[in-house]
């Protein structure tokens, strides 16, 4: 083997690339945190319906993963995030958000609790220096595990059946947000980004391909498909999940003033635990709470079927009051759905008479339409199978 002494140039292959590459018919790749990641492997439609009707594998290895350990690990995590991590039990996962001193969201992610002295944080944005700064002065170590740990997301109604056939019956009684070591070095969490039944599997990089092969071999019967980002993105919007850099701007990554948003403005006020003691941005968030939200991130239903990504939103067809941050046609609910940022009081006190401006191209000719917008308070896709424990076999 040729020894490479230089820093690799361009995008890097993930531990699963050797399996993904031959499956790619679309040859549609993107860069994700420096790694090659599929946008689409076959067709978006095919992959989307596999998530909702069968089961799918999505390579989440590019996620940043950090291990925080030591006697003060819980204190460090509690200083970092807005919710109270002492309420997350060992062997549980929590969705978490963390803010800068002005209460503006830095990123969101999932926090895996091994024990009070051992946590793993998974997130989109690089966070090592921030975690090191957060842990400064505490008896805790921060380790960047991004490269060491490979992750696979197994999502869809038959995912439990596949797991069982692959020999992971131990996962049967796992509740949503449980996580455990089902075999030496193989950790499974009942988590995902689809709002459906699903799991995430975590292994050391060297064991990545073995895991893939094992799942793939058990999956034929359950309709397993490898998928790319685009199909997943449809599902996450249906589930009402927010994406960093899309529905909110991670405040460390922006240069313009006033691009930051508070968790409260993004609809996660319940995840801000003011009563747990100090955490980063707490004082600023209290002031924000006092002053009231400046914006709201709303789930909206848009008339018609033309996806409205980026559309401006008007009140009384006149006053510009916001824009769509993520908009798609939802194949399962057969609705034109979106997440949209609205400037207060729109979307909070004023919910009626809202319109989206949509551009349509009819055989080479652009036209503009104003279509009615309806606010939703629930995720667009909710299915009981996502939560059933033990999960339904198929």
């Amino acid at each position, binding site marked *: 083997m040729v020894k490479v002494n230089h820093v690799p140039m361009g995008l890097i292959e993930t531990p699963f690339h050797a399996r993904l590459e031959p499956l790619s018919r679309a040859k549609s790749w993107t860069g994700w945190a420096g790694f090659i990641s599929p946008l689409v492997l076959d067709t978006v439609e095919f992959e989307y319906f596999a998530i909702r009707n069968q089961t799918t594998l999505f390579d989440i290895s590019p996620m940043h993963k950090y291990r925080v350990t030591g006697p003060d690990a819980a204190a460090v995590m509690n*200083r970092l995030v807005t919710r109270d991590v002492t309420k997350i039990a060992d062997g549980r996962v929590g969705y978490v958000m963390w803010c800068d*001193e002005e209460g503006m969201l830095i990123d969101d992610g999932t926090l895996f609790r091994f024990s009070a002295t051992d946590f793993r944080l998974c997130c989109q944005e690089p966070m090592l220096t921030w975690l090191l*700064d957060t842990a*400064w*002065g*505490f008896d805790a170590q921060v380790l960047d595990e991004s490269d060491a740990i490979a992750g696979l997301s197994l999502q869809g109604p038959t995912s439990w059946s596949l797991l069982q056939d692959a020999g992971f019956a131990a996962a049967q009684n796992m509740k949503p947000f449980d996580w455990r070591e089902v075999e030496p070095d193989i950790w499974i969490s009942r988590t995902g980004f689809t709002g459906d039944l699903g799991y995430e599997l975590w292994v050391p990089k060297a064991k990545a391909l073995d895991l893939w092969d094992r799942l793939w071999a058990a999956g034929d019967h359950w309709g397993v498909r490898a998928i790319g980002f685009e199909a997943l993105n449809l599902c996450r919007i249906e589930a009402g999940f927010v994406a960093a850099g899309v529905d909110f701007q991670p405040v460390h990554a922006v240069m313009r003033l006033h691009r930051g948003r508070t968790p409260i403005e993004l609809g996660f006020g319940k995840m801000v635990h003011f009563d747990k003691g100090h955490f*980063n*941005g707490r004082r600023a968030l209290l002031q924000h709470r006092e002053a009231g939200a400046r914006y709201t991130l709303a789930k909206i239903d848009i008339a018609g079927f033309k996806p409205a990504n980026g559309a401006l939103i008007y009140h009384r067809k006149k006053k510009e009051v916001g824009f769509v941050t993520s908009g798609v046609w939802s194949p399962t609910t057969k609705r034109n759905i979106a997440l949209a940022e609205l400037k207060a009081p729109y979307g909070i006190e004023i919910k009626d008479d809202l319109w989206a401006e949509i551009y349509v191209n009819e055989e080479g000719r652009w036209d503009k339409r104003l279509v009615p917008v309806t606010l939703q308070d629930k995720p667009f896709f909710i299915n009981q199978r996502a939560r059933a424990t033990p999960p339904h076999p198929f």
Partner: protein
Amino acid sequence: MTDNRFDAVVIGAGHNGLTAAATLAQQGKSVCVLERADRIGGMSRSADLGGATLPEMAHLLYNLNPGVAKSLGLKIASRALPTVALCPAQQHVVIQGKTAQYANGDAHPDAAAYAALYQRLKTFAALLGQLAEGAPPALAGGMLNAKTLQEMMALGKLGLGLKRLGKVEMREFLRVILSNAYDLILDELSDGPLAGALAADAVRGAYAGPRSPGTVFSLMYRLGNGGDVTLPIGGMGAVAAAFADAATKQGVQIRTDVDIASLVIANDRVQGVLLSDGTTIHADAVLSSAGAMQTMQIAGIAHFDVEATRRMRHLRNKGTTAKVNLVLRNLPAFTGLTREQTAGRLLVAPSAVAVERAFNPAKYGGISKSPLIEAVIPTLTDTTLAPDGTHILSAIVSYVPHGLEGGWTDAARADLLDRVVQTLEAYAPGIGELITHSQVLSPADIETMTGAPGGHWHHAEMGIDQILTVRPANLMARYAFGVGGLYLCGASAHPGGDVMGAAGRNAAMQVIKDGVLR
């Protein structure tokens, strides 16, 4: 236990802590001062050595805030001293306010230029001095906010003052305010002891050479209260005692030898102080004159935002001043100086270039072979300080690094003493023979003795990135320090160090203004 319940607790019985305590007490608040050392005074205390009372660290007054002195009714006797800029060629220059002449009475060729420069700096400094009288402006509340308007008024006064200077002078003020002392001085004066004296005054206590930006500001800072340099009668310890008296007269309790374990904080509000013997002292406000990071650590890092902690970690506070105190069996003879001149503030800073050069080794953990010295023989003015016939010489040595290469060993201290004595020998031959006792305090020793981060004169460098609205750091410049009821009141807060009292007074007034106390 009523004994351990106060409206406010002050950490540190340096003059700023004592000022804060006295100011609060004057407003009818009950206050307790907790000092770690066995004595009050901090950097303004006296020490006993060989039967003499010497100013252990600070030795001269020039920035004592008149408002503080007046409102506390401080009784401090002090005598103005001339400055003597020593010249290796024995052409010493005696400076008194705006006049400069040779020690033998001859006119100095730069006398007129010096007078004009001094006068201008003093006028500018007086303008800046106004800013020391309160918290620096935040201007965060928007224009319709009463608080902001008040701040605008204060700034307006500065603006008005600037306007009154006239167009030319205003332009000059804005031109020089952020620039370096070296250029400013040498634009007007030829280089030599007179220029060296100004350059040395611009950088004493700083981790900066006269060519560093911001040193014009630090020169003006020194002149903010008129520029007169005075020697306190009874020693610097008498000054500290006067502050303490003012406090105790107002009912302030001062406790020394106290070891603070942590603050008691509940619901993001200070509740008091926990001592390491387990005692809790309850209070609604805690004002700390310990360093900014040290205060954060006492309170617990967990109570602060990550950004605030980061700023405190990165505060620049490399101490650069050492103190050498000598007890002499006889009065040393300084060649070419009268007894009266010998009693002055003696500066070894032969030129502005020499001052800049002396800084160089300090950047790399070394000490210049020709250290800068500000020496005074207080016993010539106040004979009560030492047994009959004996004298003390108090020397501030600049550009002595906190992080000396090889560490601060006894040998390193002896070497520093040797360099200082050798340097003085050039002006007062035989002085080394007269030494009966000596005390050498490195910046590291000063840190150990007072807790001042880096042993720094101002607890945090007075650079343009750490003054006014960003002192000690952005978002923490108005004394309030994160946790409700916690305030900074020492040199690391606006306006900064020196024996001045403004930081302590301003912090106390801010506590009152914020309505923290019932």
